[in-house]
């Protein structure tokens, strides 16, 4: 009864808007048959894994660091009034993120030499778009109340990738303490659109000739696209599934290390790679500077000057728009993970021998996870504490509490269930925001079904 009461208290205390963690829950979750996806060097609980085709692993994550749907569209509130409120609190580093991963195939097997091999194929949609907050306020208000502000193009950043990835991985256990894993990845870029690393300023100063000088200074804006230019229907994308012509290489690396019996240290780096886009390319760029302080009237004795055309010609000369078809490289959004966990079984009976032989398994761990992802403008980073427990070889659970760029704390959880040799797992971000999805700024879900075999 006391335990049920404690659980109820925890439920009540956590009825808050909580934010999510990008894969931090599933990382190092040792009951998960898909553990090698986040660390090729992870200790796998199973001898072999055959992901049920098309159902083996599905990941969906959507996040908005600035506001929730409720903030904008709550019933009995005014959308017209909500928009300026949200705009006033928007930061240039706020962003929208959408990530969908769908594994078509994933097979893992342990060879006689205890090396673990894995091969798989998945589709991935990744989009991150930053809110250029200052520019949005400029568009909403007009420039009249922003004459003293400087607007910077560096906050114009967005990246969308639709990629098919084929991988082959090897994991080698060097000894009882150290395991190293590697995945070689072949990327097939189906579509891409990106802009980032832009520069340029828009601002206004006082003028000696007129009221103001409006400055457009050192503009350097580039947009690159592939796969959007002419075709776009389903048949076209299906025809690209084998080889789109936009190919790339990448790698995942990871390890797990047992410094002693109770402690496990892991780390991984994922999607260290690139795609070279050379098909269906369309690029756009804007370069230059321009100043405007009104038209200077000359009062000619005869004839009329075409001031407006002269102004347009002057602008087009100084701010050049270029459209091109040059190939380009798109770097994959690299992710880093690391963790340290400590076995908590029989803590009262710790002896010196516990720190010698790492063979003994523990049924529960507490630990810390750190993670980071390279994104345009700003690196996303965070850390979490977790508790995971192996109830039996058929049932594993994990709870995470995370702090990151978006929130001071977020609660996530994972469950892995083996019904005979059929393995189910589900990972959820933002668990307790299920109490009100409309107020959630992020939701993440990962689930899959596999056919497994156990280690002897």
């Amino acid at each position, binding site marked *: 009864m006391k*335990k*049920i009461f*404690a*659980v*109820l208290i925890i*439920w009540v205390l956590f009825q808050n808007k909580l934010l999510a963690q990008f894969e931090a829950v599933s990382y190092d979750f040792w009951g998960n048959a898909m553990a090698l996806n986040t660390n090729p060097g992870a200790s796998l609980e199973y001898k072999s894994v055959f992901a049920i085709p098309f159902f083996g692993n599905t990941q969906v994550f959507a996040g908005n660091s600035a506001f929730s*749907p*409720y903030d*904008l*569209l*709550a*019933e*009995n*509130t*005014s*959308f*017209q009034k909500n*928009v300026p409120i949200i705009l006033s609190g928007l930061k240039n580093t706020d962003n929208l993120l959408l990530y969908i991963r769908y594994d078509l195939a994933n097979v893992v097997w342990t060879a006689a030499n205890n090396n673990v091999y894995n091969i798989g194929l998945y589709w991935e949609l990744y989009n991150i778009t930053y809110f250029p907050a200052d520019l949005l306020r400029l*568009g*909403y*208000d*007009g*420039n*009249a*109340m922003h*004459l003293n502000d400087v607007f910077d193009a560096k906050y114009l950043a967005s990246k969308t990738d639709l990629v098919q990835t084929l991988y082959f991985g090897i994991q080698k256990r060097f000894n009882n303490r150290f395991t190293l894993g590697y995945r070689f990845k072949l990327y097939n870029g189906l579509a891409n659109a990106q802009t980032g690393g832009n520069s340029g300023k828009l601002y206004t100063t006082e*003028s000696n*000739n*007129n*009221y*103001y*000088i*409006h400055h457009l200074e050192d503009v350097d804006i580039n947009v690159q696209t592939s796969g959007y230019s002419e075709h776009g229907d389903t048949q076209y994308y299906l025809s690209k599934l084998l080889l789109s012509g936009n190919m790339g290489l990448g790698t995942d690396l990871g390890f797990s290390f047992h410094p002693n019996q109770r402690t496990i240290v892991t780390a991984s780096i994922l999607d260290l790679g690139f795609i070279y886009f050379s098909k269906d390319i369309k690029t756009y760029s804007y370069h230059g500077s321009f100043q*405007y*302080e*009104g*038209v*200077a*009237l*000359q*009062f*000619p*004795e005869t004839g*009329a*000057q*075409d*001031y*407006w*055309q002269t102004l347009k010609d002057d602008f087009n000369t100084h701010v050049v728009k270029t459209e091109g078809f040059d190939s380009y490289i798109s770097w994959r959004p690299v992710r880093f993970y690391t963790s340290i966990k400590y076995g908590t079984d029989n803590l009262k009976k710790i002896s010196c021998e516990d720190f010698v032989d790492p063979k003994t398994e523990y049924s529960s761990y507490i630990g810390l996870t750190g993670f980071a992802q390279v994104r345009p403008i700003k690196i996303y980073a965070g850390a979490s504490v977790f508790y995971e427990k192996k*109830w039996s070889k058929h049932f594993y*659970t994990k709870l995470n509490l995370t702090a990151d760029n978006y929130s001071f704390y977020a609660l996530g959880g994972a469950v892995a269930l083996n019904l005979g040799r059929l393995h189910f797992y589900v990972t959820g971000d933002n*668990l*307790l925001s*299920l*109490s*009100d*999805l*409309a*107020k959630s700024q992020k939701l993440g879900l990962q689930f899959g079904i596999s056919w497994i075999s156990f280690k002897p």
Partner: protein
Amino acid sequence: MKHSLSFIFIMLLTGACSSKLDLDQAKQLDIQPVVEVDILYFDLQKENLTDSNALFRQQISDTVDFGIFEDGKIRDGFVKAEISVAYRNTFYRQFDTDFYFIDEHDSAVETGNFTIDAANSSQPEVTGETTFVFDKTNNPEFVNFRKIVVKVTVTPDNLPVEDKSLHMQAKGKFYTRITVE
């Protein structure tokens, strides 16, 4: 502990819900941006007031195209315009200044005029500012103008012209209401 976990699971399932959202509101958004921008300026010197035959030009004018209202959405979104004109005169002459807002048929849809006093020995520089206001209700034809004609008439109209100057500058503050769908 197993019972506790089952309890948590059931609570999560039964607790999942969402506050109501009104998605129909997002079909359109009305915004009211105000744009403030320079329009024109000039510096009249004595060379501008005499022609190639050294005759006095009592009235001079110049024209600048202003095609911003050619766009139908901008025309529909127009609410009000405040055209501010500032000047600085060191001529010992008076200037009658007219701003004509001309449509594509060369007809004046709106006008604005003011007089600039002559400078003198006790007031060597005359400065001032005036503002014309045109709004959708009282000046519905304003959005039809496509060019601005500035006409300046000088008195007295005698030679020689002093080596002085008349500086004039104009900006516009445009109030709009735009529906974004």
